[in-house]
């Protein structure tokens, strides 16, 4: 039982970084939602803000690392062109999918959407992290800003979720050799 270099990077990209971003979302959302002065003591707000700052910054960094590893490490393996006349295409997922009429949609729609839309997630996650750090404890007294950051946070999660879902489904349709 061992992992190839390709499998290891796919694991880091999808199950490590990508899954970490999606799983941390629930904690971040709860942190923003409950950041209300009428619900928390002074010490509670300080503790909550410190956790929210660290959490949103880590999530933004993770979102950037996820798209960078996905595009610059994993994607070249996905789109590698097979040698002329090759009939065994399992090592060339893009061409494997396109060669099968009932699988081609996974590339033409799924991968085409995933590879582009995923890059919007780190932009949105950066907005959320900046907003949390910039406002700090003041965020508890700015409900409009908090609501805005919650919605941007939800949008980042939705975009990352689309990319993650199609990543998992495409890996299932065209498994690595």
């Amino acid at each position: 039982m061992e992992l190839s270099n390709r499998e290891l990077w796919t694991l880091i990209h999808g199950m490590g970084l990508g899954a970490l971003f999606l799983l941390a979302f629930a904690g971040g959302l709860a942190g923003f939602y409950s950041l209300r002065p009428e619900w928390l003591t002074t010490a509670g707000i300080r503790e909550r803000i410190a956790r929210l700052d660290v959490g949103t910054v880590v999530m933004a960094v993770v979102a950037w690392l996820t798209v960078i590893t996905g595009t610059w490490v994993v994607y070249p393996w996905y789109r590698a062109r097979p040698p002329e006349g090759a009939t065994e295409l399992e090592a060339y997922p893009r061409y494997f999918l396109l060669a099968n009429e009932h699988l081609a949609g996974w590339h033409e729609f799924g991968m085409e959407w995933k590879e582009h839309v995923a890059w919007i997630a780190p932009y949105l996650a950066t907005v959320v992290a900046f907003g949390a750090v910039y406002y700090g404890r003041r965020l508890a007294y700015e409900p409009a800003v908090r609501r805005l950051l919650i919605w941007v946070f939800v949008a980042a999660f939705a975009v990352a979720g689309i990319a993650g879902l199609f990543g998992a489904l495409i890996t299932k349709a065209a498994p690595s050799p």
Partner: protein
Amino acid sequence: MAVNTERVDIIVADRDVFAGDEAAMAKPDGPLAAVLLAAGIGSFALGLITTLAEASSGFRDRLVLNAGVGPLSGKTIWATVIFLVAWAVLAARLRNRDGLLRSATTIFVVLTVLGLLGTFPIFFQAFAPE
């Protein structure tokens, strides 16, 4: 019972002091508006570049900054450069401005929705030459 009353008093007093302190720390919303607008601009740029690359093979070829990654390398690098430059410029200009968040949010939503549309395959593939 008397102990409980005293405890509530302490917490309320503590909270009031904190609320006053925080109220004095009001911050201009310009910096947040700047990053929000930059994210919208970056998303829109990504959608626009993706759609233009589909419509023009010459443009798509110029986006190949790395042979392994193909045109996606140029699309993502240029969109990210546009995001970062927009953020830097807007942050400098809006640093001390306030009351911008409502209009910035509207512009952000419009640009981001257009960016999402431009990265949606059924949309951008409609621009591919026959």
